[in-house]
């Protein structure tokens, strides 16, 4: 290994060279200390990959740095209850879990529905060590936290997770997280996590994680439920679930809430949002805390989001029903001459943002 100063001096020489103005520099180093990572970024490095080289992850990591893209992966796209069977194979049957992996290694997990089990397995197949991730919880209804005990990286020493979400009055995120692992409900307790796990109660606020900016907003749903807007280097991803936008004829319709929500997601590159019901289904589900297709289309179009991702499907909907919702949403956007593109992500699918 060359002394670190040599590598960093080479970084400086490359980035300051008049003929290399478009050349990026990636540090690959056996130095595992946080100091060395920060020092590399201070010298202007575009990325930092620790040795030993992991053949399972190296190329993906390098490409993510070079392209400066975020990998957005869906591990569970359903709401309310996991469902199984041949009619759910296309979109998958797991409940809410989505991840963002950034060029500089930051890893964000949104919700711990049953999809997080597959995320844990994926980490294991990649032989990842020293996982450092933030877990953003929208709210603690079961379908968003029910697989916490089955997320294997929590039981591995050297991993570190910060759990962020809204408290529920006098119940903190830590209490919410640990309560479902009390002996009555599950035989392994929260105290048996080998990873370092710590908690951060959120309100409506802005926070910064190195070069990533996170905004939160309280959503329309029973209890305290937070929506997130993630801004990174000119791109933005909004994760808005669970959320009920009442129809205009409802006594509970709140135009001020919708206006604020439109402002919150305005111009986003990606809007992932609760599209639990068809408009017909919603007629008997008002007040259940979820939205129907026409309201979601209206939000995405008015806010001029670039890509709308339909999310949090009802467990009574099979693949054909989700296909039909998808077709309806696209038709509604077309009828509005909207520039918003609509997608229906499947479990396991990754998008580059």
């Amino acid at each position, binding site marked *: 290994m060359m002394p670190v100063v040599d*590598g960093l001096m080479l970084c400086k020489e490359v980035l300051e060279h008049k*003929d290399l103005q478009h050349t990026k520099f990636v540090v690959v180093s056996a130095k595992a200390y946080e100091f060395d990572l920060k020092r590399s970024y201070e010298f202007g490095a575009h990325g930092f990959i620790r040795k030993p080289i992991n053949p399972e992850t190296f190329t993906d990591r390098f490409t993510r740095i070079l392209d400066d893209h975020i990998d957005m992966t869906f591990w569970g796209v359903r709401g309310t209850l996991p469902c199984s069977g041949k009619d759910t194979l296309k979109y998958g049957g797991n409940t809410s879990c989505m991840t963002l992996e950034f060029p500089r290694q930051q890893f964000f997990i949104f919700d711990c529905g049953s999809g997080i089990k597959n995320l844990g397995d994926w980490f294991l197949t990649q032989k990842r060590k020293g996982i450092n991730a933030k877990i953003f919880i929208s709210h603690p209804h079961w379908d968003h936290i029910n697989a916490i005990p089955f997320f294997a990286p929590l039981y591995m020493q050297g991993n570190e997770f910060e759990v962020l979400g809204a408290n529920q009055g006098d119940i903190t995120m830590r209490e919410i997280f640990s309560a479902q692992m009390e002996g009555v409900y599950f035989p392994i307790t929260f105290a048996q996590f080998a990873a370092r796990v710590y908690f951060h109660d959120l309100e409506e606020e802005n926070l910064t994680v190195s070069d990533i900016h996170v905004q939160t907003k309280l959503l329309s749903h029973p209890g305290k439920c937070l929506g997130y807007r993630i801004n990174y280097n000119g791109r933005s991803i909004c994760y808005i679930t669970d959320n009920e936008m009442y129809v205009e004829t409802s006594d509970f319709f709140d135009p001020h809430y919708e206006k604020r929500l439109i402002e919150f997601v305005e111009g986003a590159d990606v809007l992932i949002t609760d599209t639990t019901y068809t408009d017909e289904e919603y007629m008997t589900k008002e007040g259940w805390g979820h939205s129907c297709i026409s309201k979601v289309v209206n939000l995405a179009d008015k806010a001029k989001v670039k890509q709308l991702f339909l999310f949090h499907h009802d467990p009574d909907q099979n693949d054909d029903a989700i296909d039909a919702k998808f077709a309806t949403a696209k038709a509604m956007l077309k009828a509005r001459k909207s520039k918003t593109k609509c997608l229906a992500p499947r479990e396991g699918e990754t998008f580059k943002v």
Partner: protein
Amino acid sequence: MAKSKKKTSVYIVDDDPIVLKLMVALLKEAGYSVLSSTDSSEVITDIARKKPDCVIGD
């Protein structure tokens, strides 16, 4: 994606020949055009001449 990778050139500088060989193999397999050196002294001159899209350094 594969198309853009083929156009992308990477210059790797690492004094460990085994690690260097591994990185070269992985990036070539992914479709990158790869140049390499185990010697960091004076390598900047060659890098400036080749103008790679990215330099990997230890």
